[in-house]
């Protein structure tokens, strides 16, 4: 599904990722943990195609395609979805209109029939019920006046509606209460299947109690310094990153 090889990336000329390699097979969930500033968000932005993140070496292959050669919207319609650590607010853009536009852009690109306004509302309301989101969040401008938790729910709504092949969750759990955390886990778990993979960036073991990962990696100073199974997350929770960083 995803193969990252020897990835080097700079921001403003400053090297952030320094030779990162990672393979995710179809159906797998990988977790990435690591200290603040280690390059976790940078990795997710490089994969999603954000401007200003320059790849200086290495390659990323997604479903057999050169991901780095694709525009952000091409990556999205190919199935990459980034749940942002800090989602933007869009005054003047209605959430429902935005979501329908995105859904149809993805459907069009896949050669699927577009959904009309009525079909869209049906789909969205069903999803929102599961996410425990009030209906009026569709009417409001995207993320404007949303609480931190509501923004994250909105990210999960987008993910669920767009049904990606590869979800990148960048600290989606940070600042969430237990119920919201469970909602994030439920949404990811509901998409789980042979054609769905995820890269879950988190600082906390507690999310991984609900989304049990196949592999856990520790990112430090732009490289993966340790990898293991779910038990690695528990170890890190108990001992912190320092020991791993020192050993690397």
């Amino acid at each position, binding site marked *: 599904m995803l193969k990252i090889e020897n990835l080097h990336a700079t921001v403003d000329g400053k090297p952030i990722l320094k030779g990162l390699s990672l393979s995710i097979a179809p159906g797998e969930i990988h977790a990435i943990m690591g200290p603040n500033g280690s390059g976790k968000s940078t990795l997710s932005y490089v994969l999603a195609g954000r*401007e200003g993140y320059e790849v200086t070496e290495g390659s990323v292959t997604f479903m057999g395609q050169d991901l780095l050669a694709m525009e952000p919207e091409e990556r999205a319609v190919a199935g990459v979805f980034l749940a942002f650590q800090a989602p933007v607010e869009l005054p*003047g*853009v*209605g959430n429902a209109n935005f979501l*329908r536009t995105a859904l149809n852009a993805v459907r069009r690109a896949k050669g699927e029939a577009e959904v009309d*306004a009525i079909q869209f509302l049906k789909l969205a309301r069903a999803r929102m019920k599961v996410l425990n989101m009030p209906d009026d969040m569709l009417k409001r401008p995207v993320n404007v006046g949303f609480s931190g938790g509501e923004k994250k729910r909105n990210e999960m709504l987008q993910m669920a509606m767009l049904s990606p092949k590869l979800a990148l969750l960048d600290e989606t759990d940070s600042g969430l209460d237990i119920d919201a955390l469970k909602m994030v886990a439920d949404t990811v778990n509901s998409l789980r299947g042979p054609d769905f993979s995820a890269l879950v960036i988190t600082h906390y073991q507690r999310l991984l109690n609900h989304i049990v990962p196949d592999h856990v990696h520790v990112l430090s100073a732009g490289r993966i310094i340790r990898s293991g199974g779910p038990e690695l997350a528990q170890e890190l929770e108990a001992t912190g990153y320092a020991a791993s960083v020192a050993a690397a």
Partner: protein
Amino acid sequence: MTAVGTTGAGAFLARHEGLRARLPGAHLPWVTALREASAEAFRAQGFPTRRVEAWKYTDLAAVNGTVFGEPLTGVDDALTLPATTNPRAVFVDGRFRADLSTLEGLAYTVESLAAVLPTLEGRLGAVARPAEQALAALNGMLFEDGLVVTVPAGVAGGVLELLSFATVSERAPAYHPRHLVQLEDGASLTLIETASGPAAARYLHNPVFEIEVAAKARLNHGRLQQEGLDAFFLSTVYARVAEGGAYDNFTLNAGGRLARNEIHVALQGPKAECHMNGVQLVADGQHADTTTALDHAAPDCASRQTYKTVLAGRSRGVFQGKILVRKIAQKTDGYQMNQALLLSPEAEIDSKPQLEIYADDVKCSHGATVGELDADNLFFLRSRGIPLDQAKAILVEAFLTEAVEAVADEDIRNALSTAVTGWWQRQGVAGGIEVA
């Protein structure tokens, strides 16, 4: 500047000399006096240069250098009018066309200015100020026709459309319609005006509006300026509002190669209100100017202005907004915001807000911003699969939303959003946001 020649102020003054005996109302002393006074004012001012403060950012050199002809009486008629169920008055090349207009069964009167000129003594010229605005002087000197709307006391006039078309002509025509709109006590009207013309035709459309809103009356004035891209549109609106009256102006300034939307509003009675909103959509090669002057001349009045300018390609936009609060105008509540969005590094905006306050108990503020499309917002939309052009269109629409939503009248709002979509499509961009 005033030398007789084939171009510039001199050419227009010469035209007035030549047509003097044949212009509408030539036999009426008061009309002649008004034209002579306007000619005098125009002779004194000419086409203002950029040394004139009010024209600092808009250069009329191209107007000054064009050879204009007289509008020919239309033989056009490949004209296709958009469908509407509203009553409408149609002007072609500045002249009222009864044959194209539908004005039956109205509870108020709509007439051709040329036809009823003898009845307009004391009304025509009551609000315009040719001595101060050169283009109003040019208009006063050479007007031939216009619309005269009178809504009697207490009458709710509903929607009236004013359609102005330019046709293709070999010699660039210049026309100067004078429109008079009067709402008597407690009357109301929504006037939706559309000005358009062929893409490649050069012409000068120089309309002047004189608007009088009496006590507790309300005029919603929506203007969709979509002139051809080689046209000059130089428009001056004068409005005065009496006690408890309201004047709402919304202008879409989107067409023409050079367009000036100049509005003078005087709030003359207590508790009068004015909203001025507008959107300027300026594409490669265009220059669009909105200049407002709001005169708070009575206490307890409120005014709100929201202007948004979007600039693409090599284009130039101007916003100038002056709020004058006279000593008597205590408890004035005035607000003005103008914002520009630059879609290209070659686009430029000049903005000049100006507050002049002589009363001490007032709330008056203004603000201005200039920015580009936000890269993070753009990336967010693209990361959801929305193509770049469509993502830009969505963010431009969002930028305009505030100005559009400030428009109270739904008919005007709808006409406007159709016009904005049309403009955007002409920029080669397919589709903004889909409505759910």
